[in-house]
């Protein structure tokens, strides 16, 4: 079986700074639920960034959905990103777009008609229990609501893989529950691979998962 993510001897650093990841070895299979944990500054977000091509590896190999990130050009990278759903800790919603339009973004990029985009966005907003706020702007929502919008956006185009960076970092209990349910559903019902970077794995998840732990630039698989 081909891995969705295959990293071998990965070295990651920002510019000329000292490498943050010096020995990144990890294999993620399709439809797996994966947690990447570690202390603050251990490089959890850095490794996630490399998976969606925001950071190009200095050394080693990183294959995402069969594409080598190290030698990727911008048009191939654009294409790869259309198969991914990304959730950021700081939400990264477009503030002068409505909530509905934000959710529509990956579908618009995928070239779907406006009718399809609206229908799918409304369906997802219903899932995250924010349909009544479809016409609002992100800054009119609470942090938890904004993260649920970001989650809906990440799921809108049925991505092959979801990459989530601390998706429940600063959220209230209710919003956290909605987010974990959505991620679980994506894995169980849509066959999506889910990679979550977090400080803390929820104890009530009730799902099989793979766990990688980062320490001193080395990625360990926790059995």
């Amino acid at each position: 079986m081909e891995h969705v993510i295959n990293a071998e001897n990965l070295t990651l650093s920002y510019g000329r700074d000292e490498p943050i990841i010096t020995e990144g070895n990890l294999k993620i299979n399709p439809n797996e639920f994966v947690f990447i944990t570690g202390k603050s500054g251990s490089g959890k977000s850095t490794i996630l960034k490399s998976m969606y091509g925001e950071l190009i590896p200095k050394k080693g190999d990183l294959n995402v959905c069969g594409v080598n990130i190290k030698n990727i050009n911008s048009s191939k990278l654009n294409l790869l990103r259309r198969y991914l759903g990304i959730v950021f800790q700081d939400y990264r919603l477009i503030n002068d777009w409505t909530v509905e339009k934000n959710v529509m973004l990956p579908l618009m990029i995928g070239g779907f008609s406006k009718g399809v985009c609206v229908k799918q966005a409304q369906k997802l907003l219903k899932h995250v229990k924010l349909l009544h706020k479809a016409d609002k702007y992100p800054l009119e929502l609470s942090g938890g609501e904004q993260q649920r919008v970001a989650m809906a956006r990440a799921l809108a185009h049925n991505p092959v893989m979801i990459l989530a960076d601390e998706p429940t970092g600063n959220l209230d209990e209710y919003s956290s529950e909605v987010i974990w349910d959505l991620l679980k559903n994506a894995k169980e019902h849509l066959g999506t691979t889910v990679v979550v970077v977090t400080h803390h794995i929820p104890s009530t998840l009730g799902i099989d998962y793979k766990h990688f732990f980062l320490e001193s630039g080395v990625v360990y698989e926790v059995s």
Partner: protein
Amino acid sequence: MKSLKNHLSVILPLFVLLFSLQFTFLTNKIVDNYENKLTQDYSIVVVVPKTLSKAVIKSRVKGIKSIEEISSKKILDRLKGNISSKNISLLKIALPKFYSMKLKSFPSIKEIERIKKKLLSTGLVTKVETFSKTHNKIYNMFKALKNTAFIFSTFILIISVLLMFKQMKIWLLEHRERMSIMTLFGAPFWMKSAVLYRLVIVDSFISTLLVVIAFVLLPSIDKINDFAQSMNIIIPKFDILKDSGILLGVALIFSLFIVSIVIRKMNKE
């Protein structure tokens, strides 16, 4: 409100740019019309001992539109009372021929000198009168007028370019976030930049329309008309199709160029 501000910050410099451009065109047209009028009134007088072959002169000296013989009858008629008819007949034979030459365009000072030298070098002409003092005065005035219009529009152009570049910096800040988010989701180049391109295309049309309205209405203002008449100037009519086309073309090229710089800069980041 924010959207209106966004539009105004593009429309204003574009309007200033197009207005100054159209003003320069208008000044040039007025000056050209005036020059044509002067060319019709201006002529060089040459004195020749024998009848002049117009074809020979035209082939040897470039820039001559027409050559007309000045009749000596008037001079001789004036002398009739003082001189005997026999002497008048002798004078008629001895009197050189005078020709008035009209030129194709209003000549520069150098051009006049060239024509004068060329005429004298043919060996057919004994004297050339170019009325250079009057001509040079008018020519220098025109040159100053054209140069002033050019300096004015260059100055305005620099100001509008600076204004647009300032706006560009604001765009960089405003759109960086949106474009970077779109990039993370794999948006193609055209989709990321569509907002800015749409904005400047719409604003180019609006600014062109405003300048067209201004220049169509301008000649109908009494004060401007009175001033033009007092200066013996005819304000040329605004050619809706041609002039609007040029203005719109300039607005689009200029604004699209600026936006492309912004987007290239953002993409590099």
